[in-house]
């Protein structure tokens, strides 16, 4: 073996390394190519993905636009339909009002009354469905304005008392001192909520008062307003409570069999109250009554703004100005509505002047000739909004009388513009006589705009009179606890009146119970007794209530022996009471 330097490598070793290197290089090339192809495939894939994403985005965009267009069309359809239905309906109702004012024949008057009731019912349904559709379409807009709940409750109360069902009923408002004088909220919707609850209370009870309570408790957003509406009516069975706020549901019972409605009222209430971040609920005992409540957080307005027009703020019904002899300019193009409004004005003993459209109204109007302007919105030549705008340009605010707009349009659509041109109040057509009267009185009372004093907030209308035993001997028969409690809500007179009604009603009821016992009709007996139990308990006639319970259960008290005897005891008791009447 020849000596090779240690750092020299043999040829065969070199060749072997060469081969290994070639192989490695070939492998490298192959891997590089594979990598390149894989990269190409990847980028093609990503391009394709991007393209698909943009295709999908475009599809979604189109779908969204289509859905939005459909939704807009639907809202417009709803608004148009409501206008189309409400205008003739308003005309009909107005004509019926006029006819019944002049009608002397009792038979015809009764027919007119039926027509009116049916018309009002229809109008309520149309409004319900309209509200509901608006909420469905998401076009329900909640306003934020200063609300005077005392004035609001008062006007709702007066209005409810003026319709058929409320005419003979007592509606009592008890606004706690904790309730702020003014707070931010949607007055229209709060009014709708309360009046809905009151109309339900009137519908589902036949006797006893309706009590509206309001109180405020501290809340992170300033205050939590709670309004309760209590009735002493049929009540709601517990298993029906959960269905109460569902769409199109009604609790059926003897009272509602005849009651009309869409079953949307409470569903709408629920949506409204949830829309403004509040809650609604109910406590109810069948045969005793129900208390519906709403709770909503509100922001308290520290000082009342000087011209809060929408709240319909009126301090006291006594302070309302009389309409007699006031001069009103009515701008209205529709002859039926002209007739209606002129007749209304006549009834209110107003001095009315008529303008057939906005342009004529503008020409006729003069601040020293008119105390009020009633302006229809949609009129030929010049609409009410434009006419109002021009009037506002021509005269200063100080000179101008209140301008009220009347519209059959959906209120939300018009209200904003109306406020912009300087219309004080927007009234919705059809407007009942009493509501128009109240609105006009309210508007007049607000002129001249006096600085509202922060003094004594309008308290509840009825001050508690001290109970005097002489005046109310009947009340002595009631349990003292019940009397005290009831006197917080009622005056002694009102309460005596209620007891009188109770005695009369119960006397009839006990006759029916006796008849049912004689005929062996346990079902009827039990139902009547149940009702008697509830009402006597509320008024604190504990003895009667206990006896009624025994009859209801079909178990006479051991000392009386028979159900008939128990019924007799009740009858005797009632006769004693009757003697005191």
């Amino acid at each position, binding site marked *: 073996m020849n000596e090779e330097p240690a750092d020299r490598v*043999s040829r*065969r070793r070199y060749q*072997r390394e*060469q081969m*290994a290197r070639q*192989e490695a290089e070939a492998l490298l090339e192959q891997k590089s190519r594979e990598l390149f192809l894989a990269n190409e495939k990847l980028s093609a894939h990503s391009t394709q993905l991007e393209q698909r994403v943009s295709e999908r985005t475009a599809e979604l965009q189109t779908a969204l636009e289509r859905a939005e267009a459909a939704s807009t069309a639907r809202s417009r359809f709803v608004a148009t339909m409501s206008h189309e239905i409400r205008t003739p309906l308003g005309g009909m109702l107005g004509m019926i009002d006029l006819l019944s004012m002049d009608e002397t024949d009792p038979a015809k008057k009764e027919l007119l009354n039926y027509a009116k009731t049916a018309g009002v019912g229809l109008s309520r349904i149309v409004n319900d469905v309209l509200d509901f559709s608006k909420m469905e379409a998401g076009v329900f807009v909640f306003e934020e304005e200063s609300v005077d709940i005392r004035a609001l409750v008062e006007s709702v109360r007066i209005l409810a008392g003026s319709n058929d069902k409320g005419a003979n009923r007592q509606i009592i408002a008890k606004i706690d001192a904790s309730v702020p004088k003014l707070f931010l909220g949607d007055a229209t919707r709060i009014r709708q909520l309360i009046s809905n609850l009151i109309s339900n209370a009137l519908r589902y009870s036949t006797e006893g008062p309706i009590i509206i309570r309001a109180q405020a408790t501290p809340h992170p957003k300033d205050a939590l307003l709670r309004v309760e509406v209590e009735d002493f009516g049929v009540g709601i069975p517990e298993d029906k409570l959960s269905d109460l706020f569902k769409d199109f549901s009604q609790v059926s019972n003897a009272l509602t069999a005849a009651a009309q409605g869409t079953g949307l009222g409470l569903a709408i209430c629920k949506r409204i109250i949830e829309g403004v971040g509040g809650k609604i609920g109910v406590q109810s005992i069948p045969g005793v009554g129900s208390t519906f409540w709403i709770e909503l957080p509100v922001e308290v307005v520290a000082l009342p703004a000087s011209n809060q027009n929408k709240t319909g703020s009126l301090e006291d019904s006594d302070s309302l100005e009389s309409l007699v002899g006031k001069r009103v300019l009515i701008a209205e193009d529709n002859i039926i509505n002209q007739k209606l409004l002129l007749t209304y004005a006549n009834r209110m003993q107003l001095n009315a002047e008529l303008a057939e459209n906005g342009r004529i109204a503008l020409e006729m109007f003069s601040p020293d000739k008119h105390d009020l302007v009633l302006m229809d919105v949609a009129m030929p030549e010049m609409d009410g909004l434009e006419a109002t705008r021009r009037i506002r340009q021509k005269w200063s605010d100080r000179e101008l009388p209140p301008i009220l707009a009347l519209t059959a349009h959906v209120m939300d659509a018009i209200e904003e513009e109306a406020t912009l041109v300087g219309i004080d109040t927007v009234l919705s057509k059809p407007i009942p006589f009493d509501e128009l009267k109240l609105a006009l009185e309210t508007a007049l009372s607000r002129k001249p705009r006096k600085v509202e004093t922060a003094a004594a907030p309008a308290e509840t209308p009825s001050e508690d009179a001290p109970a005097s035993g002489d005046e109310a001997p009947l009340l002595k028969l009631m349990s003292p606890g019940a009397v005290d409690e009831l006197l917080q809500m009622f005056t002694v007179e009102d309460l005596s009146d209620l007891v009188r009604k109770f005695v009369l009603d119960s006397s009839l009821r006990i006759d029916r119970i006796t008849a049912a016992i004689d005929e062996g009709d346990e079902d009827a007996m039990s139902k009547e007794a149940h009702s008697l139990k509830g009402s006597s308990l509320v008024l604190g006639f504990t003895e009667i209530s206990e006896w009624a319970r025994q009859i209801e259960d079909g178990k006479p008290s051991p000392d009386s022996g028979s159900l008939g005897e128990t019924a007799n005891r009740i009858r005797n008791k009632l006769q004693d009471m009757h003697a005191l009447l």
Partner: protein
Amino acid sequence: MKGTIFVELIKMAEDAFGEDTVDDVLDKADLENGGAFTAVGNYPCSELVKIVVAFSEHSGISPEDLQRKFGHWIMDHFVENYPGFFKDKKDTFGLLEAVDGEIHVEVKKLYPDAELPKFTTERIAEDHLEMVYTSPRPLVEFCHGMIEASLERFNEAADIQRCPVAAQADSAKFDITLTKKAGKAA
């Protein structure tokens, strides 16, 4: 089989017998590529066996002993080139248990077509591990060498029993009982 095994085997032979001897042996071993291996290539396992047999014939050392020595050698190679796999291992059992679930997972990422043996471990006691080695290749001694090398690395000692697995001709079971635990002083 990965080229790196061939390259390392030849390196070990060079270290033991010198370059010229290796060249002679490789020339005579009737290898498909004349012994020109690259670490990035892939070669049949039979070639590895041929090399082992050739060196056995040359040196008189049994192929089994050669494989076992090679196990020691390759362990050093791994520690040097892939320190990441050893960094968080405290002892042999920890390393063996990590082969299938950790080390081979990483190998597969780089070489998706690599055919890897299986190491199924079961910790019988703290100082007792059963490991079943499964591979179509006759390299059980190589594996044995690696286990020994690992014990040395962690300064451990163990009694290693090996037995075939019933009905699994390609498997062997290692029964490892520690006699000396990993020293605290590293």
